[in-house]
Each structure stands twice: as C-alpha cells, then as structure tokens.
C-alpha cells in the first residue's frame, strides 16, 4: 500500500521539481524519510534513479532549443563524476544522523539561493582552456543570437567536484551548485547554465547510482514508484510551466523548504 501511495507522491514531487528547477530529489528524500520512515540511504539511492530519468528524458528538448553547451558539459562531468565517487565513499562512513544534518543544511542553503535575484553577467575573454577546447558558443535570446565566452574553467571544475559529492551523498541533482559553477564562476548565460546543468545531471547521478545499485541499496519496492512517478510528474511540469506564474510558486516553496530543512536537522540531532 505504501508503495502505491508513493506513486502519486512522486508525481507531485516530479511536477514541483520541474516547475522550480530543483529536481525531484529535494522533495522525495524528505517525504520518504520523514513521512514513511525509510532509512535515508535507501531514499537517497531511489532518488538518484529518478534524477537519471528526468535528465535523460529532457536533454533532447534543451538541445533542440540550442541552449545546451555540450563541450562544457562533458568537460565539467570530469569534476562531477569524480566528486560522485568521493561522495559515495564518504557516504559509507557517514551515519544517517550526519546525512539528515547535511540534507537539512543543503535545503537551507537552497532556500537562501532561491531568494537571491539572479543577474546575467558575461565574460569578456576566454580562459586558455576554453580557447583550446572551443568552449565559447552562442545561444538564441529574444530572436537574436548572442555570443558568449567562458572564463574561470578550473574554478568551475572544482565547484563541480563539490556538486558531485553532494549529489552522491544526498541523492540530489545539485543543480544549485552546478549553476554556481557555470553562471557564477564561468560566467555562462543563465539559460545556457540551466540547460547544460540539466544535461549533465544524468551522468553525475549515474556515477553514484551505479555504485548504490551494485551494493544493493536500490530497492525495487521504493525505486519503481519513485522513478515512474517522477518521470510522469516532470513531464507534466514541463507542459504547464509556460502557463504558470513560477515566481509565486517559488516564494511559497521557499517557506516549505525552510520548514522541511528544520525537520531534517531535528531528525539528525535526535538520532
């Protein structure tokens, strides 16, 4: 029965995640742990599966919109994949109370970041690595093509490594860190950063999901409804997104995130 209830819950998680650009993990892990009492390690593993599904499913539409920078994605995947390996190894030595605290802290941080206004800034010159690998590109914005350059590549890679660690430990896409690396450090345009982040998330999640899968932490009873629900929910979210006032939903959700963050932290302190 609980397995059945997880299906509509995951549909809602996928729907919200896609509307808010957060990915379903931020919703699924707290629901599984706080409401259903599932051990956080099983929740994290099931969540990673759903991230692969949404990222792989959406990649085509972002590419068609000429927003994804494939070269930047593959270069930065070096950082996230090795970060995911580190995260997986760390997770084996972390107690579940530590995981709850880390998740709560991450939610708080995400809430703060969502509150901040994002500003598009551009790089004037390419970093030498960007020059060598031809990372600069162009994207369509309001009917015009706009050229952009890529700077601070090594620093971006470092932030991506951290993003990979968080992804593997907490079962999230860590889109927020990926945005910090691309739009914050490397000065890629916002739209390009967000499309490229989505494109990469599947590879990052797969690195640790594969390890969790072989260790037997991905339980079919949990992963099946979560993966199916998130696929359906994310698809629905993408359909209605253009018709909704996402800003209003974001504001409501920030409050919810803070409340959930406090509960996760309390749970971590109790254990």
């Amino acid at each position: 029965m609980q397995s059945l209830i997880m299906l509509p819950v995951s549909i809602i998680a996928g729907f919200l995640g896609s509307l808010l650009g957060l990915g379903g993990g931020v919703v699924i892990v707290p629901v599984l742990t706080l409401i259903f009492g599932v051990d956080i390690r099983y929740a994290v593993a099931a969540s990673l599966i759903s991230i692969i599904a949404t990222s792989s499913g959406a990649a085509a539409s972002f590419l068609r919109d000429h927003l994804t920078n494939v070269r930047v994605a593959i270069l930065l995947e070096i950082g996230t994949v090795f970060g995911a390996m580190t995260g997986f190894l760390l997770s084996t030595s972390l107690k579940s109370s530590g995981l709850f605290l880390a998740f709560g802290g991450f939610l708080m941080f995400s809430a703060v970041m969502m509150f901040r206004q994002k500003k598009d800034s551009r790089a004037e010159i390419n970093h030498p690595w960007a020059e060598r690998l031809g990372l600069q590109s162009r994207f369509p914005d309001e009917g015009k093509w706009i050229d952009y350059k890529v700077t601070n590549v090594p620093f971006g890679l470092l932030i991506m490594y951290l993003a990979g660690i968080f992804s593997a430990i907490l079962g999230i896409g860590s889109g927020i860190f990926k945005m910090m690396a691309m739009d914050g450090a490397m000065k890629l345009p916002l739209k390009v950063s967000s499309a490229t982040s989505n494109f990469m998330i599947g590879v990052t999640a797969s690195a640790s999901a594969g390890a969790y899968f072989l260790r037997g932490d991905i339980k079919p009873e949990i992963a099946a409804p979560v993966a199916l629900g998130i696929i359906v929910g994310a698809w629905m979210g993408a359909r209605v997104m253009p018709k909704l006032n996402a800003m209003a939903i974001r504001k409501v959700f920030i409050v919810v995130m803070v409340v959930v963050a406090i509960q996760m932290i309390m749970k971590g302190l109790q254990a």
Partner: protein
Amino acid sequence: MNDLNRMELKISKFLRLGVIISGSIISIGWFLSFKFDQGTFVPFKTYRPFNILDSLQMNFILQNWGNLIIYLGLAILISLPVLRVFLSILLFLKQKERAMAIIGSVVLLGLILSFTLGIEA
C-alpha cells in the same frame, strides 16, 4: 545548429526512447510484484547491507519475477548516461577532436570506476 549538436540531438532522442523503454519495463515489473507487496515500507526502516547478487538470488528463490524485471529496468536506466558519454566519444573521434575525445574517455573511465566501488564496498 552545428554537426556536433545535431548528432548530440540524435543521441538525446535515443536516450529519451531509452527512458520510455526502461520506464515501461519498470511498470510491468512493478505490476507483477504487487502480490509480493508487504503493504509497508517498514522493512526499509533500518539499513541492512545486502548486495545486488544476493538480492537477485533471493527474488529468484521467492519467484518474485516482478522485482527481477524492475531490476532489469533500473539497470537499463542507469546505463543510459554511460551510453551517452560513450557515443559522444565516438562522435568527437569522428570529428577528429582528440582533446575532447580524451576528456570524454576520462569521464567514461570515472563512471566505470565509480560503479566498481559498489562491489563489496
């Protein structure tokens, strides 16, 4: 759209098909596994290490074909990004972009290494 993006778009469409296929397999497995459903997540309240081979074996003994089918669907889903990286490497090689092909290979190697961490970790 340049050649690289055009080919990547093909790969991505192929991946979307992969998601649909694995999603269908998981749905079928989930449906078949209902009669084994214990109706609760209580068994997952505490973490017990139980590797994939033992899990497969146990489901085989219980004749829970549904769970085994779900595992198949999950394995396909997890392999999709690996396949994408592999196809991207071939694409870079075809376009004689050595540096990008090497970078892709490092990512692929990282993925494979990461998977092996799950064996008897």
